């Protein structure tokens, strides 16, 4: 067990007010969002107030952790706890995406072919949707949202794939630089990663505008539009978060928070970034290419 190593006491923090702040933030956000959706006037501002409180909480909470870390309160065992926490958090994120990928696969492998009369769906097609032929992309027998076009895989999405793959490389270089103690290289490559993240988001925004303005591809475009926007949208949200996290880490590097062998914060963000990267590869394959 990792107990020994100098500080053999596991650091148990004193009471902290940040979780309580976080709870209030989350509560405000959720209540705000629900009221917003229900078209209650104060819903929208409440939502943003909630998000602001959550950001304040993160600022303060992580600030505490950073201070404690710098003061040397954490031993290797505490570090392991953080690592495990981050790993299992990422696992939970994977399962969140799994639900949406599951929906995509189910639609493509079962519900759409069935509606088109394949196998188990023969009667459904015969009695209810005789003129519907299964195809992908589709907006279903009801042609919901009207006809639409899709984003070709080999244009912007390919570019975005390359951007994300490159960013995976740059962050790895930055990591090596950190371990080797090359500060400038670290800052440059981490900065590049942030920039690439931003670039990705820019292209994705362009793509969405294109889809909505010119292709009539919307959230309402049947199950294709649903899966397309929910998967890419949640991914984009994660890229946004990841980029912000990278930015924070960049400033922390600038301040010299990390040492060669003690930089869990950096690694956690790097793991997260790789996770976002891998999800994109899945997306690129199953949403755009196939």
């Amino acid at each position, binding site marked *: *067990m*990792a*107990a020994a190593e100098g500080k*053999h*006491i*596991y650091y*148990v*923090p*004193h*009471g*902290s*007010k940040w*979780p*309580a702040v976080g*709870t209030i933030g*989350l*509560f405000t956000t*959720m*209540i705000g*969002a*629900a009221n917003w959706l*229900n078209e209650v006037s104060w819903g929208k501002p409440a939502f943003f107030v909630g998000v602001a409180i959550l950001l304040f909480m993160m600022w303060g909470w992580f600030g505490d952790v950073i201070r404690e870390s710098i003061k040397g*309160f954490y031993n290797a*065992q505490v570090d*392991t*706890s953080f690592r*495990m*926490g981050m790993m*299992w*958090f990422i*696992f*939970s*994120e994977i*399962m*969140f*995406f*799994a*639900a*949406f990928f*599951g*929906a995509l696969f*189910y*639609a493509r492998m*079962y*519900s759409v072919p069935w*509606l088109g009369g394949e196998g188990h769906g023969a009667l*459904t097609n015969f009695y209810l949707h005789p003129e519907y032929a299964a195809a992908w992309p589709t*907006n*279903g*027998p*009801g042609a*919901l*949202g009207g006809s639409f076009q899709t984003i070709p895989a080999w244009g912007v999405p390919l570019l975005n794939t390359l951007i994300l793959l490159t960013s995976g490389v740059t962050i790895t270089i930055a990591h090596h630089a950190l371990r080797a103690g090359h500060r400038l290289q670290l800052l440059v490559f981490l900065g590049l990663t942030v920039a690439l993240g931003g670039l990705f988001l820019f292209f994705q925004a362009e793509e969405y505008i294109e889809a909505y303005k010119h292709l009539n591809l*919307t*959230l*309402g475009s*049947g*199950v294709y539009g*649903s899966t397309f926007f*929910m998967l890419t949208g949640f991914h984009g949200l994660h890229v946004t978060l990841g980029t912000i996290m990278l930015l924070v880490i960049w400033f922390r590097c600038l301040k010299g928070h990390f040492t060669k062998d003690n930089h869990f914060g950096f690694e956690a963000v790097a793991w997260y970034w790789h996770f976002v990267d891998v999800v994109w590869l899945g997306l690129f394959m199953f949403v755009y290419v196939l």
Partner: protein
Amino acid sequence: MATHAAGHHADHHDDHDHKPQGFWNRWVFTTNHKDIGTLYLVFAFIMFCIGGAMSGVIRAELMKPGLQLVEPYFFNQMTTVHALVMIFGGVMPAFVGLGNWMIPLQIGAPDMALPRMNNWSFWIMPFAFTVLLCTLFLPGGAPAGGWTLYPPLSLQGGSSVAFAIFAIHMMGISSIMGAINIIATILNMRAPGMDLLKMPLFVWTWLITAFLLIAVMPVLAGAVTMLLTDKFFHTSFFDAAGGGDPVMFQHIFWFFGHPEVYIMILPAFGVVSEIIPTFARKPLFGYQAMVYATASIAFLSFIVWAHHMFVVGMPLGGELFFMYATMMIAVPTGVKVFNWVSTMWKGSMTFETPMLWAIGFVILFTIGGFSGLMLAIVPADFQYHDTYFVVAHFHYVLVTGALFSIIAAVYYWWPKWTGKMYSEKWGKFHFWWTIVFVNLLFFPQHFLGLAGMPRRIPDYNVAFADWNMVSSIGAFGMLCTPVFMFLILWHSKKHGATATQQVWEGAHGLEWTVPSPAPHHTFTEPPLIRAQDLAHGDPTH
């Protein structure tokens, strides 16, 4: 004995043996696993009372044919919210509370791995339930589409839909963080010498449960998010007109939902596996087999989900696969039951209150398991499905299973928590009263289901009147039980006899090496583990 466990404390803290002063510091800003455990348990108790009150409305309306008390739509709200409150507000937080209290004590850890996050996990819960219960007072009322939230019905709800979904998101966030904390604690915080295969079973079952939680709570979050966008953002995941499928929701929901029911029973198995050896004064039979059985159940739980969907119109191959997979679960579960009986065999048993609840658990949970097995037989499930037979099944596994084990655990560890004994006489009274009424309540529901009474109906044909009356009488008896339990524990806290360190003659494990009540901080330095302190120390047993 074992004063090393609690005595020393670190140099960089000044208040390690003192509880924080003042309400806010003690309870709201706390990072102490014991206080957070207490908070969880108190919260769960309150939720059980609220959920129980709702079941009281249900049973009062169902006492006689004809509608006497509530409109059908309100009845559906009661059914839906009763289930959500009991499952997400009662059973799950109660087990997290027990885990918080006992896991660090059982593995010799100073606290949970991530104490601040532990606080956050808890405090989200009361707010999540505020959001959920508020919907009862909204125009259009609370969600009324059943706890399974099947679309399109669930989307017909008024403004409650968004609130309920966000409440579920909050519960999910809380559960995931709680589970991450538990896994990190168990994998990273064991005292030297506490090998994985020496851990108490309660710890083992929680480790596996935490894994299940992290794997499936996000899937539920995804499912309800799709509901939300189907309602508010024109997506058509669950609308066949757009190429989706309402049945798809059921697949995703039950991919969460089935592991969820094992999330509610695996820690119960752990509790019972602690209590029976203690009062049989004999080591747990087949410790390793118990661990492997738990893992097998967890594994199987991922591939049986569609047994809730035998009548949705699945292809034949699907029906067969899910039938076989479901039936398989009887095997590892059987191993558990047989091992508990074998532990009792040739023991030297006494029947203190926790033991009574544990024995009640083994018998009545098994009955619930049997009806589960019957439900797995597809041709028969064509008849059982969505009848009171199913309601009887899951209340046997949930109430006389999960809830009984929670009550057993509270009686078992109460003296360790408070340093006070409770009244055995009244504890036993609580038990026997419950046994009588819970069976009056749920056993006749098997008959009702077999005779053809559908579930989720506020009114029924007069042929069902008699057993419904019996069932309602049972329910009213059951509704007294939280009051009994509260009074028994309150009395113990105020006037109970002082508990010894070991509390129970046959108890083994690290938690019994610290004083009763357990000091605010324990094991700030890892304890030296001696073989006799371990419940499963010596593998040659």
